[in-house]
């Protein structure tokens, strides 16, 4: 039985990365996620597993270091917070285009611009809907607990390699900075160079050995017909991911008259709202998307047949609510509620919003 630890979400990401057998972390400090690289530097994972940790000169450099290492078939990751994620967008588009597996953690803070260092969920658009150029999707996992911050590292790498696609862990300042109990999986061995060669021989650039043709990692295809074909290939892959990888959780939805939809720390807050509402005799349920892409549209659509109204709760001016509306397709009223710009809504505020915008509205 593994020991129970009390840790910040950011530290849990770092420890989980070591345990998952990650080969390399490249990062650049930014509040509120600097504990990731601080923990890794202090922990000296090169001594524990041989994992490489490097502080890059910028977020741009960090994501491109991830590109280089990922293109060699290695498990590479980076982490940042909103302004830093914006900077990484260029590299992420290239990584998606070149179909490289990697993991990016975004511990979201308030914006726009330099914004604030306090928690926010206003990166939904730039993470879930792109932000970089071109038609691509990132697999997006939204942890709601410190335990999930740890667990999703391994899951994110598994999905990233399964589909050769970047995966993002979309967290926020609440989950990144709070401490909770966490139990880690046992240490996984890093793959050896030979294992990497064997597993990813068909694409990884590790030197063209054993008579194989050279491998090329690129996102460039100047012939538009071939670029379109590549895009079709990507879309087919995204379809497959959508069919297989949707993850979500429901609370008290069985008899719910009203539904809250929220992810990450907002989902935690909404759980309390559900409790407060039920104490008042209002039957409220909560659906918490765990994957933000692919999105649990079908599950929400089904619940729309049962409930009288839906409140999408997020720490933004209303981003995910668009996906809820698309899923519901006009069946019932869908409204948005959320504090933003670094403010965090309380369970009571959410309940008030539910009562005024949905039940009374």
């Amino acid at each position, binding site marked *: 039985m593994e020991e129970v630890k*009390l840790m910040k979400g950011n530290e849990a990401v770092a420890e989980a990365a070591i345990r998952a057998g990650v080969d390399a972390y490249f990062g650049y400090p930014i509040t509120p996620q600097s504990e990731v690289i601080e923990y890794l530097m202090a922990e000296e994972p090169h001594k524990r597993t041989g994992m490489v940790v490097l502080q890059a000169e910028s977020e741009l450099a960090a994501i491109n270091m991830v590109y280089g290492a990922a293109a060699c078939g290695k498990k590479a990751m980076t982490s940042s917070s909103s302004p830093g994620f914006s900077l990484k967008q260029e590299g992420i588009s290239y990584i998606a285009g070149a179909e490289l597996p990697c993991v990016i953690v975004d511990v979201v803070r308030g914006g726009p611009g330099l914004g604030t260092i306090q928690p926010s969920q206003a990166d939904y658009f730039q993470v879930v809907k792109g932000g970089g150029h071109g038609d691509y999707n990132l697999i997006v996992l939204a942890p709601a607990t410190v335990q999930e911050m740890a667990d999703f590292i391994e899951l994110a790498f598994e999905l990233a390699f399964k589909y050769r696609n970047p995966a993002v862990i979309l967290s926020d300042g609440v989950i990144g900075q709070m401490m909770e109990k966490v139990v880690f999986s046992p240490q996984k061995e890093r793959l050896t160079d030979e294992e990497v060669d064997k597993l990813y021989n068909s694409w990884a650039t590790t030197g063209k050995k054993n008579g194989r043709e050279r491998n090329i990692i690129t996102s460039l295809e100047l012939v538009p017909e071939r670029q379109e074909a590549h895009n079709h290939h990507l879309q087919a892959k995204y379809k497959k991911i959508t069919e297989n990888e949707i993850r979500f959780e429901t609370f008290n939805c069985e008899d719910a008259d009203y539904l809250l939809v929220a992810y990450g720390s907002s989902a935690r807050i909404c759980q309390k709202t559900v409790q407060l509402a039920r104490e008042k005799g209002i039957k409220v349920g909560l659906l918490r998307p765990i994957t933000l892409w692919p999105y649990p549209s079908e599950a929400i659509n089904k619940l729309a047949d049962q409930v009288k109204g839906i409140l999408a709760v997020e720490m933004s001016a209303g981003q995910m609510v668009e996906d809820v509306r698309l899923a519901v397709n006009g069946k019932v009223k869908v409204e948005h509620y959320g504090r933003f710009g670094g403010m965090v809504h*309380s369970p009571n505020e959410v309940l008030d919003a539910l009562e005024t915008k949905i039940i009374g509205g």
Partner: protein
Amino acid sequence: MTEEIIIAGFGGQGVLSMGKILAYSGIMEDKEVSWMPSYGPEMRGGTANVAVIISDERINSPVLHNFDTAIILNQQSMDKFEESVNPGGVLLYDPNGIIHHPTRKDINIYTIEGANEASKLKSSKTFNMIVLGAFLKIKPIVKMENVLKGLKKSLPERHHHLIPMNEEAIKVGFEKIKEVQTV
């Protein structure tokens, strides 16, 4: 049992580590815990606060606007958090430096002369443990043996020799807490 606590004061008073020790003590009792700080520039010299929840059940929202207990260690925090104590809840504060004392009539109010007692112990670092001791006197939500275990967990090994002094400080808090009003 669920206890929702806010600890608020200046940076450097050991607010965050007090919360951490409390949270670790909860883990030692097999309870669910969460520790949610305010962070950033505030932590460097300004105010610092941390919300700690200890519960027998899975904790939902780590973010709270109302608390069962507020532990208040400076005037700004008093101004900010006096109103957020649940009716019938506890407000524990160090009167040292407090100009506007709490005025609410619907809560239980206690004081602990943490700063003064710490200087008597000739160690300002014991301040937060004295306050923690006072809190545990009012709300014995974790056993002393588990607090010591939690202390051990949250202190780096090179500081383990300080554990006896911290234990001493907790006991001082136990003894020196003063009741102002109970409801």
